[in-house]
């Protein structure tokens, strides 16, 4: 079978998406677990004219930089054609830069916060990889663990 990859926005006009990447996991307070939509995760700041950024989550302050990706990423979404139900992949955006936070976070203990979220730092990141099967594209409810 064939699954076509289309760019319905016409690649020159492909909107640019962004990634904020953290070396760790954000935990939401138990009281908010059922409805995290619209909840604030944290504040992203650029303190000076350098491309340096801070991200404050709960009482942690992370430091990071804007990174240009060596290879841009296409953002794909599965689409079901209305005429024959065939699955297609649509390129809905492109990512050329990300804001990457990978240093040890600083704990801000002197301020008082009401926070929704808490940041759990990982001392390093790990990757795992596998070869993709065709049905990965057909059945997207399968999440990778």
């Amino acid at each position, binding site marked *: *079978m*064939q*699954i076509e*990859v*289309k*760019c319905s926005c016409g*690649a020159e006009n492909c*909107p*640019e*998406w*962004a*990634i*904020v*990447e*953290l*070396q760790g996991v*954000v935990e939401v307070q138990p009281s908010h677990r059922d409805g*995290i*939509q*619209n*909840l*604030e*995760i*944290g*504040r*992203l*700041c*650029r303190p*000076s004219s350098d491309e340096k*950024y801070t991200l404050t989550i709960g009482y942690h302050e992370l430091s990071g930089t*804007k990174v240009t990706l060596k*290879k*841009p*990423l*296409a*953002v*794909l*979404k*599965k689409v079901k054609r209305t005429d024959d139900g065939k699955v297609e*992949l649509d390129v809905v*955006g*492109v990512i050329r*830069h*990300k804001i990457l936070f990978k240093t040890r976070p600083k704990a801000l203990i002197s301020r008082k916060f009401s926070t929704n979220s808490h940041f759990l730092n*990982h001392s390093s*990141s*790990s*990757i795992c*990889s*596998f*070869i*993709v*099967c*065709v049905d*990965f*594209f*057909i059945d*997207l409810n399968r*999440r*990778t663990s």
Partner: protein
Amino acid sequence: MEQPHSILTGAEAVLNVQPNSSLSVTYDTLFGSSDNHMLLELHDEILPDLLHQSITLRGEPNEDVVLCTLSKTYAVKFVGTSNSVFLIPPSRHQFTQNGQQSVASVIEISPGNMELIETAPRLDRLKTLLAQNPYSSMEALQADDMEDDSKESKMGLCTWHDLVNKIQASDDELRNGLEALSAVEIDGFWRIVDEKYMGEILTMLLQNSILNDWSLDKLDEDEVVTSLVTDGFPHKLAYHCLHVYGSEVDEARGKSCVWTLDARRVCVHFARQVLGVGKMKLERFMEMWLKKIPDGMNANLEMLEGEVLTEKVGIEMWVRGFSVASLPSNPAERFSVLFRERPKWESKDLQHYIRDLKVPGLSSEGLLLKYTRRTQPTQDAEPVFTAR
């Protein structure tokens, strides 16, 4: 009237944070509810094909997927990360009202992204598929009688569209694969012609050449095809015969094309015919083979490299058919078959049986390094290759 103050939101906000400013990063209203987005690494070389909508994923649901551009094939690897990758789309609204703060919302946390690894096209299945129903003289005869295209007789046959859906290769690579198999499109279906039948057509062509005093390196296409059609062969196959055993010479110039028969291809054909019965003594083979070669054509054993194997049994030299075209195109399988045939190979023989192996990123030396063990008994001796 005052213009509404445009405050950036979404991805634009994240990518354009001004010095001494900040924004709020939130979970989107639709966080967790939409279908997952997938992230795919884009190589420069893929971009043009993407713009022209000629990228497809190919494969059966349970197979490893490949991504195909017009001319290349890539394996797809998913690389997961333990980092939290917050995916932020562009904002849905252009302007926000005065007083509202800058917000970027996260639609999803991506588990990782997909990478592309250039890979050889998977063409072995093409061979198997087409070999199931070779076009034979029987079918040619029946085609004359049958006027209707009854669907049952077309079962198991593949159109180009069928092949594209079944074979994990780009369009260009698929076309090259068909060319390498000497496949021909008959009535919209891609077929391999039965070897015996091709032999009949070639023999008739050679006989007609003698009868009409044609030069084998200046064959007139129209004359050849007409004579073969008169002898009862379908037009398509008469032309295909020229294509399989010859090459077009330049300068058609409005007149009929001129072809020259390729000595090597013709001689290989007759060698295969002779060795069809099994192995034989080299002397006997040469006798029988040379008898079949058309006048004016020179045959020598070098032409049969990659087609036959010779070995000394006692004091005599024997020869048997062993064609590189019959071997798997996957390197691991290829070497497995080769070492089953012969545990030890010398480079001068082995090179002909791996010359068609194409693995992106691996030269033939690299292939040998990866799949064989090289030994050299003495400085002067020929290196010998064995299985790893």
